[in-house]
């Protein structure tokens, strides 16, 4: 009996050593350990083993079963490991990935959104107004003299009914104040139009970002703090900002804002980026006349306004040298902003 078990074990281990696949291994398990397997058959001989040898033979039988089981398991694990290894053999991570479609928002949208997000953190809500405007909202209410050159048909697009395409987003200031009493704290990104031939630095339709804050006791110091914070958020905390006295009909005092631009390979220079000032009392007076109340002319009410070109922000932010790139919509250009 012992010899027989030895023989079975030896036969089983040899067979396991040479098997190469899961099916063969399963066949061996059935052939030795299954209901009709060789070891199962041999174990039936336990009945004929003399009583005094039963313990030894039983022990031997267990050892043989364990040895065969262990060999089968080890071989099984080996086969899985070999299969796992084969599955990833020869992969080439240097072969490019399967391409997914790539799109992008327009750089004007991207830079506008950056500006809008900053100003929203500063408590400005968005406002809108019509692009086809009345002369009153675009010029009169903004304290622009009746014979101001900007009103000329050579500079401004008009319609037969006397309305015009707004020449700046400042008309949204008036539209907003007509509807909303102080405090007014709004920004208005939008299109504006001037009768300019299109070239590298002019577009007949361009994009502006307007800001307005009217409240009790708003000061020039508030305007300075607001715009300095904004431009440092947008262009980095080292950004140098300067305010040059200027003239606009709708603000008094008025300033132009310059940023110091450090372009590689060029001497740093100041470039004009925005116009701003304290809302002219004449503008608040116009609004009051339109509203038929004194919400904007009451004692202590004052405000500031600012406006900047979004096209210009994009040119500076992304180093775009020619405004026409922004309206040509060439995918080789647009794809650079993915």
């Amino acid at each position, binding site marked *: 009996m012992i010899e027989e078990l030895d023989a079975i074990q030896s036969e089983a281990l040899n067979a396991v050593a040479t098997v190469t696949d899961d099916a063969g291994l399963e066949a061996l398990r059935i052939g030795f350990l299954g209901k009709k397997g060789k070891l199962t058959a041999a174990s039936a001989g336990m009945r004929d083993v003399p009583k005094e040898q039963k313990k030894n033979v039983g022990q031997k039988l267990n050892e043989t079963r364990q040895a065969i089981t262990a060999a089968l398991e080890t071989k099984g694990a080996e086969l899985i490991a070999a299969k796992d290894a084969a599955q990833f053999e020869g992969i080439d991570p240097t072969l490019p990935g399967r391409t997914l*479609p790539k799109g992008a928002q*327009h750089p004007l949208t991207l830079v506008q959104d950056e500006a809008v997000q900053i100003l929203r953190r500063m408590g400005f809500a968005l*406002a809108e107004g019509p692009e086809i405007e009345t002369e009153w909202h675009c010029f009169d209410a903004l304290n622009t003299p009746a014979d101001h050159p900007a009103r000329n048909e050579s500079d401004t697009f008009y319609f037969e009914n006397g309305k015009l395409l707004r020449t700046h987003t400042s008309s949204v200031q008036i539209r907003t104040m007509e509807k909303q009493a102080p405090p007014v704290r709004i920004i208005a990104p939008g*299109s504006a139009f001037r009768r300019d031939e299109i070239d590298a630095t002019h577009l007949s339709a361009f994009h502006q970002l307007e800001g307005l804050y009217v409240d009790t006791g708003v000061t020039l110091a508030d305007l*300075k703090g607001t715009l300095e914070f904004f431009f440092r958020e947008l262009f980095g905390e080292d950004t140098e900002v300067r*305010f040059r006295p200027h003239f606009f009909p709708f603000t*008094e005092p008025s300033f132009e804002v310059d940023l110091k631009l450090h372009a590689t*390979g060029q001497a740093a220079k100041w470039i004009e980026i925005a116009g701003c000032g304290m809302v002219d009392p004449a503008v608040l007076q116009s609004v009051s006349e339109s509203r038929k109340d004194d919400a904007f002319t009451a004692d202590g009410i004052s405000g500031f306004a600012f406006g900047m070109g979004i096209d210009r922000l994009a040119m500076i932010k992304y180093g775009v040298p020619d405004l026409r790139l922004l309206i040509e*919509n060439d995918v080789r250009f647009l794809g650079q902003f993915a």
Partner: protein
Amino acid sequence: MNTSLKWLRDHVDFSDFSIEKLDELLTFAGIEVEGIRNIPDKLVVAKVLESVPHPDADKLSVCQVDDGSGTNRQIVCGAKNYQVGDLVPLALPGCQLEGEGGKPFEIKEGKLRGVPSLGMMCAASEIGLAKESDGLMILPEGLTPGTPMAELYPAVFELEITPNRPDCLSHLGVARELAALVGKPLLGVYDHTDSATPTSVADESIVSLQTEMCPFYTLRRIKGVKVAPSPAWLQEKLDSIGLRPINNVVDVTNYVLHEMGHPLHAFDAAKVTGPLRVREAAEGETFKALDGETYTLEPGDGVIADDQGILALAGVMGGEDSGVTESTTDILLESAYFCPTAVRRTSRRLNLHSDSSYRFERGADAYQAAGASDLAVKHILDLASGSAEETLHVAGELPAAPAAVALDNDYVRQVIGAPISDERISSILTSLGMKDSQKGWVLPTFRVDLPRAIDLVEEVARVIGLDEIPAETKARFAPASKSDASYDFCMQLGRQLAAIGFHENRTLKLISEAQLADNIAVNHRGMSPIRLKNPLNDEQDYLRPGILPGLLASAERNQRFGNRDLRFYEMGRVFTATPKGGEVENEHFALLMTGASRPRNWAAKEPSSLDIHDLLGVLDAICPGVALVPIESDAMIGACSIELGTGKKAAKLGMAGILPPARARELGLDGVVLVAEMNLKKLQTSIGQTRRFTPLPKFPASSRDTAFLVDSGLPVGRVSEFFAAQQEQLLESVELFDVFHDPSGEKLPADKKSLAYSLTYRHPDRTLESAEVETAHEKLLTALKQSLNVDFR
């Protein structure tokens, strides 16, 4: 306005100011410096003594030049436009010039193709004396080699004066402003407001004022002048600011204009017949101006006329026939005040702009008229001899001087937001020429821009500068507006589209009449596109009624540049007019797709072309549950109305389809072009609903597949409608998973197609029995057969 530093120095001692410091001073005074013509050091006059071809370069010459040092200097030069003996500007080693893009570079000794070159001969554009130039700058004869160019061409500032400051439109005006800002005395000033010449009231035999556009007019006769070229000092002054010297009399009037800012005019007295009349032109009256052009005038145009006709266009330009020439002996010198509005209207209508009209348009100082006349007479007598009449003939009245402005210093502090002392405010306003009085601050007559207290606040803020004012951060909480909601919706939609391969376009809102044909936007009946009254050209004369025309133009341009695979979206405003002429502005959203259905890649075969189902897939992604309802339309093939919801409550969001190939060819577009346009606000309302949770199913579902043949022409939508109309409670969802059509007729009859659906059944409260599912499924299939006469496979 060109302003010469040398000229400014007549009035303020700026010897301790560098060009950079003056630049900053002007800038922070509110005077924009648009450019500085500043000749660098080590740039001298040189004479070309010899020029021989370079031994190793065809395009170069080797020159010997006299630089005034006593030793000849060798320069290798590429220009061809000079001759031996010419005088040219020479940059010596160490000279700093400005290169392209304003980048500074230094001239060094070096070798050009092996031949030593000890400097550079310059073109006018290289040293800032011209914007463009061709070849070397050839200097006038007679200059001494070695003379610094900076002596010949002193620094000139190109200034942009804001329209509120006509008082700065002269050298004296700029000098006065700067002197006040730096606290230096103003030199060489004559008391212009108080003329030393006695006046006499001009009667109608001399001049009569017949129009409101001229409230004040003076005239002085000078006899026996000798018209001749001006002396060097005067020629040089005019030359430095870009004016061409003409003769001593005309040059003096130009000098006074640029010195004091007051325009004058000199008539040849021999060409004036009878008394002068300042009147409005008659309708259709013509006038030949100094520029040689003939202008047709109308009432409202101010003119100076005599018995014979018009001599000058008031405040704008003199006449060709009445001006001072070499044969003139007696002159009539006009110094007047013309109203800004009238001068502006005339010069703009005639497109005739002069240094004179520029100043009268913005507001001259009537109180300077007599002084300006005095100064001109003094110089004319000096340069052209002759004798002036004893008195200045004066017609009309000086306009009222600006009223005193009351100012509360607390108001100044309140607007600026900084603790500025009363003393500082007083000192600033005083330095600018204002005088404190009982009634408030009395303004100088030349400050026409300060009628209100806020204007004085501006002066204080301007002089102090924002550097000194603290930066505060007053703010408010801001509730979101409707505009905020639409903005966020657009940004979210844009990001989603960018993520699935779309490039955002920003096309022009002004389009051509031809482009209107491409508009597919659904506009209400009777709405029409809006045309500009004064378009720039006929490519941009309509406001876009939809976005698609612009996207198609963009696609055509891209294809022309070799960009074939295009997925574009654009959002923005569109414009239409109601039948009554009222304008309507809407926010739209458009898609355009053309080219391959997916990016090319090594791992898959060549991608197929896009078809309409790619577009529908995109619409379904951005607007889940959207339905496409086929409609009749000439504008598109496969035109669909994009709808959300069913029946009468369905929201019609827009249109989608394929651009007809004939139109695509007309536009120069290649391949299948898929397009869609929607109303953004409607889209936002339809899909921007608040999100709600639906409980997940607790019991398993059971699926049954079925396949059947239908006529190949049957729209699948008919089958979808059938399933949607079924009342079977257990039916949870229906999915089309295969469409098969065999045009060869081998596997299926060619006029049939096979549709395969997977139907999912579920009960919310229990696991379904197989038999229940079978019953429900059979019932549906029977109904389907009856309804659409399908053949089950």
